[in-house]
Structures are given as C-alpha cells and as structure tokens.
C-alpha cells in the first residue's frame, strides 16, 4: 500500500512538473469579468496577444466584486504558483507590492511612456517605490447618479444642483407613487452612496481627511453626522425590498421606470445601453448633487506577478497590449468606464463617456480626483471593510446618525 502511494505520488509529481512546463509562452490571467459584455471586452485583449503568439490561459473566479478571486490569489501565491497577471483594485495592488510579489514593469513603462499619459492619482496605485507593478485598464468614476428621464419629466423634476433640490425631488417622486431611489442593500452599494453623500456634505477636504487620512476628528465630526443623516433621508426613499438586491437589478428598476434615481458608478451605463436606451433621451447621467467638480474613482488594473525575478516577455506583451490606445478605447466603450490614458481619442464614446473623460481630465488637472473609499482606493481593505460595517449597520437602522459617527471612529481605529 505504501509503496503504491509513494509510486503514485512520484508519478503525479512528475506529471505536475510536465504540465507546468507546457505553460511557458502563455499568460495565465486571474480575473472576475465573466459576464457577456466584460468577457467580450477582455476577448479583444486575448486575441491581440494570440496574434503575437502568446497563448491565454483563462482563470476566471467571479463573486463579491473580486473577493473570491483575491482569496484564490492568496492560495496561489503561497503555493509558489502565482498567475501571470491578476485583475486587481487599488490598495490590494500596493499590499501585494509590499510583499515583494509583483514584477517590475519599469522597462515597459519607460519604453511606452506611461509616466506621461497616466494621471498621477492613478499612478499612485500602479507604482510602488517608484516602480511600476501593474497596468491600469480603465478609470471608473463612482459619484454618478442615473435617472429615468421620462419619470423626471413627468414629475417636473430638473437635474438637482444641490442636496436640498435632490431631497425635494425625492419627495416629489414619493408623492407621485414612484420609488424615488433604486438601491441594492449590499455593503458595497451602501458605501458607494455614502462616498458621494459625504463628498457632497463636507467637500473634498473633508472627504480626504476622513477617508484617506483617516483623521479621527473628521470621522467623528458633525459633518460626518450630517452625512449619516442624509443617508437616512435616502434610506427613507428606497423600496421595502431593497435588501440584498444586486446592483444591476436596481439599475433595471430605473430602466423600467419603476424608480427615479440610482447612485452607482459608471458601469451602470452598460445596463442602459444593453436595454437599448439612449443617453440624454431615455436616461440621464449627472454627478451626485454637490460633487459636480469632483470625481471619485476606482481603476481596474492587471498586476503582474513576479515569475522568478524578471518580467517575462509575455508579461511585457500583455502590459503593452493593455495600455495600447486601441485596446483602451475598445474596452472602455464596452465597459462604460474611461481610458486610463489621457491621450485616447473620445471619438468612439457616447455622451456620458465623453463627459466622463472630460470630467476626469478636469478633476485631475484641478486636484479634485480622489480615490473612492467604497471601492478600495482611499484606504486599505481592513479599514474599508470596517467603514462598510458601520455604514451598512446604520443604513439598516441599527444606529442613529450620531452613534454611527462614534462607531466609525472606533471601527477605523481597530482596523488600522
């Protein structure tokens, strides 16, 4: 029996080695883009690489906005068998860079001139100690409001310019028997709304102090209490059945005219377009009232994992392909986001996309571009989730606004 086991193990080990040998020359990509549109966009990249003779080994793990994929990644890195490239967000990239797990892409970056075309705020998440470690695919901005134009017109609502007008619009819709806000009660969605609400209530300095610098005074301030109070207003205008709903189902409510507004990142646009709706005619997109000059962003990137000390030719090819203007344009038109390079033509984009690119450039130039807390671009995962806990507990009625602010200070201090 033992001999048998030993023999099998040796054979199996030999087989495993021969399998991994066969992978040389291919890239293995861990990602969570598994829905039709996203996969189609990624397929552009795959074909591009295959045209250059580099095979694409697909390793999709969907779920929880990449949470499952990050767990898998940890197991893969620990086992000494990391994927070539991994879709990643914000602080996760920096955390892995700190573990010395990522490859140095400086050679590619210099050759392709990344430093000149990628906004600084974004570089902060793609570089570690002056060293490029990942290739940004896109920039999403998260402080958008999506609205059904017919519903707004029928109730005589114009695009609200500030919080008070927005609150009034919600009241009008509620009186008319329409669900004012389409929302999905999941922690990250609650936090996405909170991002915009806090930015609007306290302005960019407050946002930065609270979520980026994690300043205790800002976290417990009256402005924070006011932000929570405004969340209660929004909570009062969602339907009874919001808890646990997926974001795209909430978007569908706006598309169908069951609801007036949804606060969601620019990926929601894809849902409207898929439903055959035209921006400006059927639906409206505008910045959350009071945050017209700011852009809170998150960016999908592909971090390259160290394959034994140097960047492989395949990784260089993949990184180059990701940041090629043609891919940046093709991918982002489909995804609803805007290119990570500022020098890509906006010709292929629709009205919302063009505005998004303009807003991004303007915000980057005026210092109004901030990482989104809800999407892991303001604070590391531990802090982000601690903030989630408080926001979602408050949104579900466990705390009042004042208690929530106190809890926030406490939660952040434990997580730091």
């Amino acid at each position, binding site marked *: 029996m033992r001999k048998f086991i030993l023999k099998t193990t040796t054979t199996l080990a030999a087989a495993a080695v021969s399998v991994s040998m066969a992978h040389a020359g291919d890239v293995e990509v861990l990602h969570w883009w598994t829905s039709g549109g996203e996969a189609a966009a990624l397929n552009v990249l795959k074909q591009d690489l295959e045209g250059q003779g580099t095979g694409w080994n697909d390793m999709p793990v969907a779920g929880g906005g990449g949470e499952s994929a990050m767990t898998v990644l940890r197991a893969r890195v620990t086992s000494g068998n990391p994927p070539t490239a991994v879709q990643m967000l914000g602080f996760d990239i920096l955390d892995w860079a700190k573990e010395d797990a990522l490859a140095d892409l400086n050679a590619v970056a210099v050759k392709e001139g990344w430093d000149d075309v990628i906004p600084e705020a974004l570089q902060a998440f793609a570089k570690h100690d002056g060293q490029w470690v990942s290739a940004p695919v896109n920039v999403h901005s998260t402080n958008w409001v999506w609205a059904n134009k017919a519903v707004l017109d029928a109730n005589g609502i114009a695009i609200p310019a500030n919080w008070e007008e927005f609150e009034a619009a919600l009241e009008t819709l509620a009186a008319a028997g329409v669900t004012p806000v389409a929302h999905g*009660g999941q922690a990250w969605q609650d936090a996405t709304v909170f991002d915009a609400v806090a930015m609007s209530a306290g302005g960019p300095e407050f946002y930065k102090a609270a979520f980026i610098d994690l300043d205790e005074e800002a976290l417990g301030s009256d402005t924070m209490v006011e932000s929570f109070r405004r969340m209660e207003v929004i909570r009062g205008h969602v339907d*009874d059945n919001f808890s*646990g709903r997926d974001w795209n189902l909430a978007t569908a409510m706006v598309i169908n005219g069951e609801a007036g507004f949804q606060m969601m990142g620019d990926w929601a646009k894809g849902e409207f377009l898929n439903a055959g709706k035209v921006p400006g005619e059927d639906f409206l997109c505008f910045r959350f009232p009071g945050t017209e000059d700011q852009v809170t962003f998150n960016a999908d990137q592909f971090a390259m994992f160290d394959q034994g000390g140097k960047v492989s030719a395949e990784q260089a090819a993949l990184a180059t392909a990701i940041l090629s203007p043609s891919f940046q344009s093709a991918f982002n038109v489909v995804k609803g986001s805007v290119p990570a390079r500022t020098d890509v033509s906006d010709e292929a984009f629709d009205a919302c996309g063009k505005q998004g690119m303009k807003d991004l450039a303007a915000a980057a130039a005026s210092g109004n571009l901030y990482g989104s807390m809800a999407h892991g671009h303001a604070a590391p*995962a531990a802090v982000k989730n601690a903030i989630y*806990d408080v926001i*979602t*507990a408050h949104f*579900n009625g466990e705390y009042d606004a004042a208690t929530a602010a106190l809890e926030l200070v406490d939660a952040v201090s434990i997580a730091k």
Partner: protein
Amino acid sequence: MATPAADADFKTKLQTWVPKLVLSPSLALMLVFVYGFILFSVYLSFTDSRILPSYGWVGFENYDKLFRLRHWDIAVNNLIVFAALYIIICSVIGLMLAIFLDQKIRGESVLRPIFLYPMALSFIVTGTAWKWFLDPGIGLEHTMHLWGWESFHFDWIKNRDYAIYTVVLAAVWQSSGFVMAMFLAGLRGIDNEMLKAAQMDGATNFQLYRRIIIPQLRPAFLSAFVILSHLAIKSYDLVVALTGGGPGRATEVPATFMYSYTFTRNQMGIGASSSVIMLMTIVAIMVPYLYSELREKN
C-alpha cells in the same frame, strides 16, 4: 537458514506491525494537515499577519481587538441561535418523519429519496432558489398576492431581526432528511419481540415510543448531534448564498467572520484568533462527548 520456529516468530511480529503500518499514512496525514495546521493557526493568532502570514509577535492584541468588535458578538450570538434551533428542529422533524415512515407506509421508497435529496445539493445550487422563494418581491409573498391573498406578509429575509430564521429554515430543509434516515435506521434496528411483549402488557403506542423505542435511539441521537453540529459550525455557503450576511451584518456567523477577516479584510491575525476561539469551543463541546462515547465502547 531460519528454523520453522523463528520463521513463525517473524511472521507473528510482522502481523503485529502490518496494522500499524496500514494506519500510519492516515495518521501522518492527520498530524500534518489537521493538528499541524491548528498549531500554525494558533501561532498566527499571536502575530501581525495581514495579507500573508508574517511572524512579528504581538501577544494578545488580536484577541483584544476581536473581543472589541461588535461584529464578532453578532456572529457568535447568531451561531448560538442558529445552532440551537437548527439542531433541535432537525432532530424533531427527523424523528417525526422517521417514526411516521416506519408505520408500513405505502410509497416509502418514493418518499424517502424526496426527504433525503436536499443533502445532495450544494447551497451554491439551491441558494438562488431559496433566495427567490423568500424574497417578498418575487417569491412566496408575491405569489400569494397574485393568487388573491392580498394581506399575506412574509418578509423575514429582508428584516434584520428575523433574517437568521430564514437561514435556519433553509438549513433544516437541507439536512432534516438526512437525520430522518439516521433515525429510521435506528428504528429498523429495534427488536420487535420486545415491543410485542410490551403491547401484550397493554402499553399504548405513545407509551411504547416514549418508554421503549426512543430511549433505544440514543446512539442515533448522538450521531445526529455530531453531524448536525459539524454542519452548523461550518455553515458558510448557506449564509453567503442566502443573505450574504445581511441585511446589514445581521446574519453574519463565525464561519463568514473568519473568512472575511482572513481573506477579504487582510487581517489574518484577527481571522486566526477567531478560528482559535471557534476551535476551543468545538473542543469544549466535542471532547467530553467523544470521551464518553469512546470509553463506553471499550
């Protein structure tokens, strides 16, 4: 050349060693992959590990943080409520169905697999169906409204005070059939002569069950308890598929807590300390049980 006696001696010796050799690979696997890992986890719970294991000693800091987290309290309370209800309800339903099925029921061979099959499905599979069914907007409540029962109201899954009970409901659905099978097996093993004798003495059915049959099912109760508590402690995909820990964090349990702190929150130290607490609880419950069980058998 060996004498026949020495040969026989060698053979006996070999015979005493073979069983231990056969057992040793399993034992070695267990020592490394279970007890080794437990020790590793205990060690990690005293370190500053975040995204990957790291070895900076921080003493009891992680435990201190753990007990300050309201989130952990909620998870522990939920597990207590969930495990108690789940184990009790499963046992009651399982026992009841087993007794009923044991009454020479026609169609037993059809009913039995129907009661059993949920155990074969993973919650990744049935979670969606349950979520639908419980969702007031599309599920039972909606259907009742369509059928004309307008006042029907069932929104537990959306209510943070009641959501944990929907988790119990789905969990009972999944495993009560399995418990039924265990009790049924126990019932079928009971000696009928004894029952007939008791009946002669004028015992009613109720007395028969209370006094003679149910006490004899003790081993089945204990096996059911082990399997059910194992399932209750590990219930992870159930919660994730059904409520995602929500509304808010109202249905978080220790399994989801451990997972999220270890893997999504990059606070591996706190995750490890929570798993150590869980393990200690399991030890406190299981060791006395295993001890009494195994000692009796000897």
